[in-house]
């Protein structure tokens, strides 16, 4: 019996050892932070090496090091919900939702500290602090990147311009892509010229401000006196897009099983793709990736709203003590002001993962492409990082961000809701039911597989039965209240 007891103790001890928290000891004057970010699908292989290099620099400059973790979406949700301790976390409008978490009190109110501790960071973000405010207080640090959505088609320039003599304009309407699709289909009747998978065309819905993504929207070009939240199926412009897609599907421009296909990236020869980026972005253009020259043509945007500006942010845990919050802010400030340091977390080790080109832009080396190919927004300020060139012959403009941000001022299409954020908690059961209904049809709708004129009436009927009108009324009421309050605020400021 004693033996049995001993064995049981051993097993229990082994089990418990696995659960006990392990904290690394760092020297006294350096603060170690737990920084959890989104993994964008995979953890970079050389992450440890790169973080160690970055820590050396940051320890010396500001006395802060990070334990950077790349985690998938589900883990981030769990991290927030389980009350686990962290210092900084990736948050945004589209992943690990900022508004929901900040309203629930999960993030630290940094309004006063950010001005006092890190004035350079505070100045660099400027007007964009608005998207991180809840009731006038700041709960997160927006990452400066492309702040408005610009939706574009990416076309095979070798084929369309050189072979067919068709000009690819810098801007086109959504429907203008049709002649390109038609020309390719006539030459290649066996293939499908428009790349499509079950997620639909990237950014096709960006011309709508999504209040409850994706079922309640406000079109940017709405011409009512006050902004009105509508169900997505009541938006005629969106229905027009669905009809076009269905027309293209029937014409054979879209592959017949698109609604069940996970990714259209396996076939690189497809001549027309959609993307969301910014003017001057070269990530789509490397001819080595595609086998042909790619030219982009913007069909929508740039649209700026609270949710587009919340594209990437950093939240600081509400349970942090002030010392850790200060350290977090100092770290974020270093990322936003020190370009050399920023490039380490962004691109890896110079000489191994990337190299600087003569005009100051960055070229990822083979190791960088395979072993540390993160997107910049995952680790911090994009604007402060060096700009990436597609290849040695195809140099990017090192000053592109200045132009992009000027473009927002001149061409930007701004939301009229003035930073309104809807708190979904009271109507969460309706939203959940509506989401399920939406998902019953969405993949076939956005790939053009189904005819919107038969599917939409079905969705409308089911959604109205599940409480769509109740939800719309609630949103409208809160939106009206907000607009009134916001209007008063503006008056006071004048």
């Amino acid at each position: 019996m004693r033996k049995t007891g001993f064995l049981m103790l051993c097993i229990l001890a082994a089990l418990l050892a696995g659960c006990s928290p392990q904290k690394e000891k760092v020297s006294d004057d350096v603060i170690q932070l737990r920084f959890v970010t989104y993994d964008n699908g995979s953890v970079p292989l050389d992450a440890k090496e790169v973080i160690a290099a970055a820590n050396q620099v940051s320890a010396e400059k500001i006395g802060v090091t990070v334990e950077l973790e790349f985690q998938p979406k589900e883990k981030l949700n769990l991290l927030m919900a389980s009350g686990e301790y962290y210092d900084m976390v990736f948050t945004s409008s589209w992943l690990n939702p900022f508004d929901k978490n900040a309203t629930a009190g999960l993030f630290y109110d940094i309004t006063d500290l950010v001005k006092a501790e890190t004035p350079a960071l505070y100045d660099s973000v400027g007007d964009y602090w608005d998207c991180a405010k809840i009731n006038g207080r700041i709960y997160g640090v927006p990452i400066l990147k492309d702040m408005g959505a610009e939706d574009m088609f990416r076309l095979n320039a070798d084929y369309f311009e050189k072979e067919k003599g068709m000009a690819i304009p810098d801007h086109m309407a959504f429907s203008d892509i049709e002649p390109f699709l038609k020309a390719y289909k006539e030459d290649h009747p066996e293939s499908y010229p428009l790349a499509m998978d079950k997620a639909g065309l990237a950014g096709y819905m960006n011309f709508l401000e999504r209040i409850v993504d994706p079922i309640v929207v406000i079109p940017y070009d709405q011409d009512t006196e006050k902004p009105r939240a509508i169900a997505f199926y009541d938006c005629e412009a969106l229905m027009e897009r669905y009809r076009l897609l269905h027309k293209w599907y029937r014409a054979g421009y879209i592959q017949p099983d698109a609604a069940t296909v996970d990714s259209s990236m396996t076939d690189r020869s497809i001549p027309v793709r959609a993307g969301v980026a910014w003017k001057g972005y070269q990530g789509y253009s490397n001819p080595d990736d595609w086998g042909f020259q790619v030219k982009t043509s913007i069909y929508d945007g740039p649209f700026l709203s609270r949710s587009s500006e919340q594209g990437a942010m950093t939240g600081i845990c509400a349970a942090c003590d002030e010392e850790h919050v200060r350290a977090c802010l100092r770290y974020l400030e270093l990322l936003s002001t020190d370009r050399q340091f920023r490039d380490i977390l962004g691109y890896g080790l110079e000489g191994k993962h990337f190299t600087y080109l003569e005009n100051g832009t960055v070229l990822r080396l083979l190791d960088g492409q395979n072993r540390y190919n993160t997107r910049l927004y995952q680790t911090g300020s994009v604007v402060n990082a060096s700009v990436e060139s597609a290849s040695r012959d195809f140099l990017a403009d090192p000053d592109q961000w200045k132009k992009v941000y000027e473009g927002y001022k001149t061409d930007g299409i701004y939301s009229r809701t003035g930073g309104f954020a809807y708190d979904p908690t009271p109507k969460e059961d309706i939203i959940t039911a509506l989401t399920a209904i939406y998902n019953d049809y969405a993949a076939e709708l956005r790939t053009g597989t189904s005819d919107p004129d038969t599917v939409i009436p079905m969705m409308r009927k089911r959604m109205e039965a599940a409480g769509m009108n109740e939800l719309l009324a609630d949103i409208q009421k809160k939106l009206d209240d907000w607009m009134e309050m916001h209007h008063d605020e503006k008056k006071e400021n004048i």
Partner: protein
Amino acid sequence: MRKKKISRKESRELTLLSLPAVIWFLLFSYLPIFGVAFAFKQFTPKPGESLFRNLFVNSPWTGFSNFSFLLRSSEMPKILFNTLFYNVIFLIAGIVLPVILAIFLTELHSKRISGFVEMMLLLPYFLSWVIVGYCLYGFLATDEGQINHILQFFGRNAVQWYQSPAYWRGILILIGLWKSTGYSMVIYLCAITAIDRSLYESATLDGAGFLDRTRFVTLPQLKTTISTIFILQIGSILTSDFGLFYQVPLDSNSLQPVTQTLDVYVYKALMQQANFSYSAAASFLQSSVGCILLILSNIIVKRLNKE
């Protein structure tokens, strides 16, 4: 006296052997039971505090309001019908088919052939649903699928399989049985091997043929195994194999009327939201219905066996 001592020692060793399983169940089945509270709470965690505190102190009780998202869907009757429809079919076919196959296999004289057949039937069980889904896509794809190639070879029109719900009840049942039959067959095969051979010998001496032996010897001997498996299965009557109904049809919208079961609905409704209370409510409903049915069927089976 001596015999008793040995058996006590033996039983202690056997208990020790079961220890890992006991610990496993304690940790993963009994310890998490407190999580049922999620279903009746509006979970509002505070960072830096323990899960227990967040769940029991920081979160307010909300009664049954977490269940309301299930009732909001006007499709609920259809979803419940689908769940029960497939489960009843799998319940019956999942017993009849493996029993018949097991009986046939034991009648085979060649050990080599029966071993080969057994292995072939068992293999699909080890494939994951994702892989099965893509293999099936290889057959059913509109453009490159084998079946459409064959149809076109014979001058017929290609079928858009993933947009044609009419075929899919059959396809899903077929695939489900193809994958699970081998595994349950092995269980029955073991049970049949355990039957006393002398029963068969005396039956044969009395002039019983294959059918008579099956009817009067094999089936009555299998009765306990069958009823045990039946009871186990009925406990999960509201739980469907998520992989079969979500991965295999590649989540195709058109097929949704015939593939939407309770698990698929819950996944679709909650995958974008991470609301633990709602998912806990859904699984609480499934488990409690399953638990009630399990107890009921246990009573019924016991009664029937007594008679």
